[in-house]
């Protein structure tokens, strides 16, 4: 993938010692899963219990969703450690898509 890479490290997974790699990778997965679960419960709880004023609900929920998305893409989908190209194309594309659809939505509502 890289084009001219000064010092090339072979791509792809190569955990040095299987057992150690397994344990640490497994731990990340579980930690992220627990965090995601907590965020989901908080979001659900806010709505279910009507914990905060309705007016504040929207931004809070969006922030919680954003946090989950960031966790999943960075850790589960490994954008944090993987090749930068993926992050560029994916992040750029998603941003573009979101901006355009929000704008289109506003135009449709504005009428």
């Amino acid at each position, binding site marked *: 993938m890289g084009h001219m890479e000064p010092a090339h490290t072979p791509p*792809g997974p190569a955990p040095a010692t299987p057992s150690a790699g397994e344990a640490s990778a497994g731990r990340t*997965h579980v930690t992220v899963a627990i965090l995601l679960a907590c965020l989901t419960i908080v979001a659900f709880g806010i709505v279910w219990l009507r914990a905060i004023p309705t007016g504040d609900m929207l931004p809070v929920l969006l922030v919680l*969703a954003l946090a989950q998305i960031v966790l999943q893409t960075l850790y589960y*989908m490994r954008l944090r450690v993987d090749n930068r190209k993926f992050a560029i194309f994916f992040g750029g*594309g998603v941003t573009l898509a*979101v901006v355009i659809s929000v704008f289109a939505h506003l135009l449709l509502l504005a009428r």
Partner: protein
Amino acid sequence: MIEPSHSGEFGAPRGTYHEATPAENNKLGIWLWLASDCALFASLIATYLSLHGQTLAGPGPKQLFDLRITVTATFVLLCSSMTMGMGLEAAQRCDYRGVLRWLIPTAVLGLAFVGMQVFEFTHYVLQGLTLQVSDFGASFFTLVGFHGLHVSFGVAWITSLLIYVFRKKRVDQADAWRFEAVSLYWYFVDVVWVVIFTVVYLMGKVG
């Protein structure tokens, strides 16, 4: 004639040249596909947001949605993401038993999610929400159903991969990208669900 240019444009390349392997190409390809799929979902979500107020004679989101079902489904999908991660690690260790141990539950959880969605949809239809009755119905079923189709395709993909390794009775390093590809897809479907859960269900309940 051409001059060796100011920015050092002329000259032999430095460093070593790494030719992309097919596996690397596949992975970039998957990422591009997912990015493009995001734009597709963004279009459908914008459609839903623009039309969901049109409940007309049919029921609306507030009275209809039962968050308890949805939140359960969310947890099911979340668990499947975790097992998928474990399965991927196993595949990268070429651990055949580990792959079976983690990927079979992933597929089952995915199937459970689809089952719950089918149950949910039937429930709504019985309450009078159909594709035709209102544009809330149309845009809701289209968006959420489209996501459900994605999950179903994911289940089919995982199953096919299981059959593939089951036939070989082993997992090779050369197959690692297959697992990475399916896991990326699966996580992506999960990410989309987070958005749908928030935008359609939670916000629908808030009104």
